[in-house]
């Protein structure tokens, strides 16, 4: 579903990501971990088509991000670490805007909004409110709902659990599992290693812009905990 080959991204002279290659197949839930500034967000933004890159290739569902960015964006959903969204809209207006862009049928969007809003405990009244009055967690929930409206094949999440209450956090994990069970692929960055260990079947560790390791959770950690492996790799 997602193929990254030799990705290199620079900010001026600074190399943020260097020669990164990895793959996430349909049905896989892959955690992307690394310390602050390691290049996680940059990689995820390149995959989402937000950032351009100097070298390498990214394919989503076999389509190149650089050759057909519109088609790849139709296949994926991106949830950023900071849900900065349009505070001049109501939640409902925002969801309809996203659904319009993806061409989601009225009945389908209505049904999906109800389903995911109920799962994440965002009430109808809250969705009808101005986004400017939302808390961080409410914005995060709204962005998650909007990302699921068009039934993407790949979901890219950057620190998705930050700001969510425990119940919503639990619901999001269920949504992520169900999504992968149905054949979708997920790549998400996190600093909460316990969540990554319990939730994911695949893990990729990035350090100073380079991929240190990538494989199934069992392959990478063996009998140790993910935290131990991560700290060992960081210390090298």
């Amino acid at each position: 579903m997602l193929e990254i080959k030799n990705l290199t991204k620079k900010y001026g002279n600074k190399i943020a990501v260097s020669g990164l290659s990895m793959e996430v197949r349909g049905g896989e839930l892959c955690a992307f971990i690394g310390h602050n500034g390691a290049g996680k967000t940059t990689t995820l933004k390149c995959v989402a088509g937000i950032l351009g890159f100097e070298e390498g290739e990214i394919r989503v569902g076999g389509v190149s991000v650089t050759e057909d960015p519109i088609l790849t964006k139709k296949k994926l959903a991106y949830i950023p670490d900071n849900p900065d969204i349009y505070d001049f809209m109501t939640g409902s207006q925002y969801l309809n805007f996203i659904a319009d862009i993806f061409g989601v049928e009225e009945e389908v969007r209505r049904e999906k909004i109800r389903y995911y809003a109920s799962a994440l405990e965002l009430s109808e009244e809250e969705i009808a409110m101005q986004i400017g009055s939302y808390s961080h967690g409410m914005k995060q929930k709204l962005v998650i709902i909007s990302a699921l409206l068009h039934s993407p094949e790949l979901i890219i999440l950057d620190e998705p659990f930050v700001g969510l209450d425990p119940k919503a956090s639990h619901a999001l994990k269920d949504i992520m599992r169900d999504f992968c069970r149905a054949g979708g692929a997920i790549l998400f960055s996190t600093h909460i290693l316990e969540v990554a260990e319990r939730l994911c079947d695949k893990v990729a560790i990035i350090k100073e812009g380079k991929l240190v390791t990538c494989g199934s959770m069992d392959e990478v950690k063996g009998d140790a905990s993910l935290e131990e492996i991560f700290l060992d790799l960081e210390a090298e």
Partner: protein
Amino acid sequence: MMLKALFRKQFAELTAQFFRNRRTGQPRTRAGGYGFLALIAVIFLAMGASFYFLAQGVFLAVPEEMSFLYYFVIGLIAIAIGLLGSVFNAYATIYNAKDNELLLSMPVPPKYIVFVRVVALSAMSALYEAVILVPAFLVRVIFRAVTPIVVVNYILLFIFVTLFVVTLTLALAFVVAAIARKVKRKSLVTVVTSIALLVLYYYLYFKAQNAMSALMTMTEVPKGIRTWLFLFYYMGLAAEGDAGAMAIFAGATTLLFIVAYILLSVFFRRFTTARRSASVKGKVGDVRAARPGTALFKREMKKFLATPMYILNCGLGTLMMLLAGVLVFVKAEMLFAVKDAIISVFPKMDGGVFALVMVLLIASMNYLTAPSVSLEGKRIWVIRSLPVSTKEIFKAKIELHLSLTLLPAWFLTAAMIYAFRPSVLSSILMFFAVTAYVLLAAEFGLTLNLLKPFLDWKNETVALKTGPSVLISVFGLFLFVLGLGVLFLPVSAVLADGYYILILFVLFVLGDALLMRWLGRGGVRRFEALS
């Protein structure tokens, strides 16, 4: 100790305005900071000089036996200027300060927080007052003998006029905060209030001259001034050395100030911690699908309608064109006279170019695309992660400009044609030229903003007011149109209005095509490099 720390923080906040770049938030260099301070000082000195001449005019016009009138007039001007300078600051400084919640979480009594902020506000207010009251006193010193009593009274007058301005400002800030807590359509209220204030300002400006003339010719004090404006009457008397009047003016001002301060302290916590009223619109079930292009346009329109500063800074041309159109239709005979005057100097003109230039100048007041890229701010990830082409995003931004500018521009064009009666050729071509120009202005603003975008703002006002794209768009287009009009003056002897308008139309269409080409290539590249 606590107050000292609060004052130190407030002082740091004040000085940061000079030593920090408002746009980027980055500290200026030492030279840059002092240079900025020097610039402010020059502006204040220039303002002071102009007020000196105003004060001199008033002083010489007032008969000596009515000398209180001088202070009465100067005092009222000082209060008006001080109020204009501080009123917008007061609400932001007291209720909307970013550190309100932080300070309230500390063991600091709210009355201390209010006190420190009021002192800061008073310092700023005193600065505005000084620009008028110091030159006014200089006039008094130069033209009439001054006793120590007059000097002391004038210093007291300065202090209490400042206190009076601060009191009024606090009262207005209190009202604004109370309204802001309740009102749901805050943007609409802000726009309507701002336009009403603007209209009131111009109304008073035009009436002020008559009122001043009436005041200057007075031989005795009218009853209205003694009753309705008694406080200012005593202010005038006090400045001339009447101790009783000074006691009344100072006492009344201090009392009003104390009441305002107590009110502020009592309601401070309630107003600053009130959650913004959340407007609930429709239900989740209210779903109406739209095409992606329409959705993008609706996004731009919602942004515009929800941002009062966007409307007031970049969209006032729409209202102006409609108002001007109505005015031209109603007062067409005034423009007949203008046309006659033009033809008497330039006999070959038919008024078409003049009318067109007027329309284009007013249409230039709309520059909706100039801040439109910067306004995406940190939320740009939303649009960049969606499956829409950058050209579609540009199209929506340009459509917003066209939808709010074209119709009123055509209306004003029709009104101008009705008033100026140019030739049929000129009249028809005027509509084409206006249409091509409005598109050119939209593309020009967008191009400038793509060349100089600024996404890292914390307050939208910064993106709307300070960006180079906005400034160049406003003044550049204005000067461009004016230049085209001036150029026609010598050309009119050999070229009829209709042909000149045709040339302008072709010029605008060429400009449209060139900018469109750049937007489709370089513009797209630049937008896609933003994140």
